[in-house]
C-alpha cells in the first residue's frame, strides 16, 4: 500500500495523543494548574493534529461531517464518533481540573475508556480489510493499543509502566512482522485464484490493461522501498524499543534524557508505521502480477 504521509502522521500522532489522554483521565500523573495545562495541551495537540492530518487525503473534506453517520457498519465512521466523544469528555475534564481544580474521577475514567476505544477503532479500519492480509490479523488492534499505551505512558512520565509496555510492544511488533511475512500465502490468494484460470496452467500477466499508472497501481500496488525493509525494521526496533528500554531500565533519567527517549521512540514509531503501509500487499496486485 502507498505509505502516504497523511495517514502515517494521522495514525502515529493521534495514537500517541489518545494514549496520553487515557493516562491523564486516570489521574496519571497527578497534576494541576499550569503543569496540567501543559500535559493536556500536548495530548490535544497530538490527537487533534493527527485527526486533522487524516482529512488531508480526502477528495472532498468539506463533506467530512457526513462521515459520522454510518457507525453501525463502518469502523471509519465509528472512529470519528468515538474520537469526538473522547475529545469532548476529556476537554471538559481538563477544563474543570485546570481552571477550577475540580477532578471528577468518573468523567476522567469515561474519557480514558473513550480514548482507548478510539485507538481500537483506528486499528480496525485497517484490521478489518481482508484485501490486505498483513493487516487482517487479530494482532493488529493489539499492536496499535500497545503503541498508544507505551507512547502515552512515556509522555505521561509513568516510566515504570512505560518500561513494561515498551517491552511488550517491542516483542509484539517483532512477532507481528514475522507473522505478517507469511500472511499473504496463508490466506491462499494467488494470481490463479484471482483470475480463476489455475486449472489451465501457470498464469502470468502478458499485457497490462493500461500503459501508465492509475489510481489502483499508485495506491495499492506500491512496491518501491520494500527492499530496505529489513534494515528499517532493525532501525525501528532499536529506536522505538531497545534503546528506550535500556535507558529506562539502567539509567536515572533527567528531563533532557527523558526527552531524548521520547524523541527516539517517536522516530521508531514513524519508521514502523511507514513499514506498516509500505510492506502491506493488497490482493488487487495479483491482477497486475505485482504486489
Amino acid at each position: 500500500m502507498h505509505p502516504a504521509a497523511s495517514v502515517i502522521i494521522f495514525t502515529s500522532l493521534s495514537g500517541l495523543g489518545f494514549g496520553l489522554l487515557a493516562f491523564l483521565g486516570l489521574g496519571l500523573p497527578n497534576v494541576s494548574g499550569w503543569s496540567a495545562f501543559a500535559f493536556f495541551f500536548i495530548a490535544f495537540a497530538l490527537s487533534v493534529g493527527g485527526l486533522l492530518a487524516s482529512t488531508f487525503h480526502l477528495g472532498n473534506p468539506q463533506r467530512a461531517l457526513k462521515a459520522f453517520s454510518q457507525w453501525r457498519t463502518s469502523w471509519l465512521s465509528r472512529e470519528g464518533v468515538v474520537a469526538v466523544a473522547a475529545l469532548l469528555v476529556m476537554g471538559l475534564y481538563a477544563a474543570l481540573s485546570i481552571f477550577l481544580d475540580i477532578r471528577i474521577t468518573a468523567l476522567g475514567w469515561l474519557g480514558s475508556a473513550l480514548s482507548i476505544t478510539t485507538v481500537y477503532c483506528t486499528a480496525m479500519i485497517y484490521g478489518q480489510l481482508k484485501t490486505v492480509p498483513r493487516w487482517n490479523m487479530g494482532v493488529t488492534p493489539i499492536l496499535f493499543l500497545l503503541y498508544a499505551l507505551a507512547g502515552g505512558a512515556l509522555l505521561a512520565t509513568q516510566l515504570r509502566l512505560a518500561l513494561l509496555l515498551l517491552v511488550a510492544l517491542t516483542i509484539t511488533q517483532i512477532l507481528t512482522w514475522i507473522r505478517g511475512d507469511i500472511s499473504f500465502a496463508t490466506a491462499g490468494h494467488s494470481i490463479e485464484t484471482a483470475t480463476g484460470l489455475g486449472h489451465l496452467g501457470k498464469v502470468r500477466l502478458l499485457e497490462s490493461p493500461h500503459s501508465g499508472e492509475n489510481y489502483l497501481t499508485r495506491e495499492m500496488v506500491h512496491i518501491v522501498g520494500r527492499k530496505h525493509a529489513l534494515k528499517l525494521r532493525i532501525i525501528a526496533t532499536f529506536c522505538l524499543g531497545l534503546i528506550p528500554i535500556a535507558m529506562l531500565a539502567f539509567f536515572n533519567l533527567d528531563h533532557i534524557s527523558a526527552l531524548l527517549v521520547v524523541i527516539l521512540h517517536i522516530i521508531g514509531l514513524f519508521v514502523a508505521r511507514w513499514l506498516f503501509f509500505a510492506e502491506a500487499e493488497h490482493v488487487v496486485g495479483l491482477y497486475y502480477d505485482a504486489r
Partner: protein
Amino acid sequence: MTALPPTTAKKLGLVIDLDICVGCHACVINCKEWNTSNYGAPLSDQDAYGANPSGTFLNRIHTYEVKQDAKPAQIVHFPKSCLHCEDAPCVTVCPTGASYKRVEDGIVLVNESDCIGCGLCAWACPYGARELDAKEGVMKKCTLCVDRIYNENLPEIDREPACVRTCPANARHFGDFADPDSAVSRMSAERGGMRLMPEQGTKPVNRYLPPRPKADIQTSGDIDILAPFLEPVADTPKGLLGWLDKALEAL
C-alpha cells in the same frame, strides 16, 4: 445506508465469456464514453496527451498468458469491472453512506454528493473495481449502466449496459442471476461460470465463463501429415548432378 440488504429481489449482473473476448478494448472505450457523458461526475483524465497519461475507467482489460509445462501458452483476455458482490465489503466500510447496494436489483452504486473521497471502499474491494477520480475527488465505479437499462428514452435494443451493447464478439451478457431461467443463469450453469477470488467471501454476482482448453497442438514429430512428401528425394545426388557436385567440391 451502508448496511447490506439481506437479499435483493433481482441480482443483475454480467456474464463475461473468457473463451470469446478478443481483447479489443471496445467495451472499455464505450463504457468511458457513456459514463463520462451521463450519470455523475465525468471520468477525468490527467496529462492525457503528455508523457505520463492516466485517467479514471470503470472497466479494464487485462491480458494473461496461461502455460502448462511442455505445452504452448494460451492467451486469455480478461475484462474486469465491478462484480456487484452480494456481500460487498466496499459498501459496509463506507463512513458516509455514499456507497450502497440497491434492494430492488442488487446494483452497487455511489451517491457522489455524499462521498468524501476517503478511498476506503477501494481498499476494501479485492478486484480493483473502484477508482477515485483525481479531478472530482469522488469514488467512481461501474453502475451497471443503471441509466441505460431502465431508460425508456432509448430504443429497447439499447437498454443494456454500454459494454455489452458494444462488444463486437458478444463476450459480455447482461441479465438477472436471481432468475434461474434467465439467459445468463443458464449460460453460467452450462459452462461452469466462476466467481473470482472466492476465498474473499464477497459472493460476486458477475460470473466468468472459463476458456475452453485449446485442442492439443503437436510440437514434436511430424508437424504436418503432408511433411513426408516434402522430404528431399535423394540425399546423395547421382548422374550428372552427382558429377557436378563432385566437380564443384574439388574446386
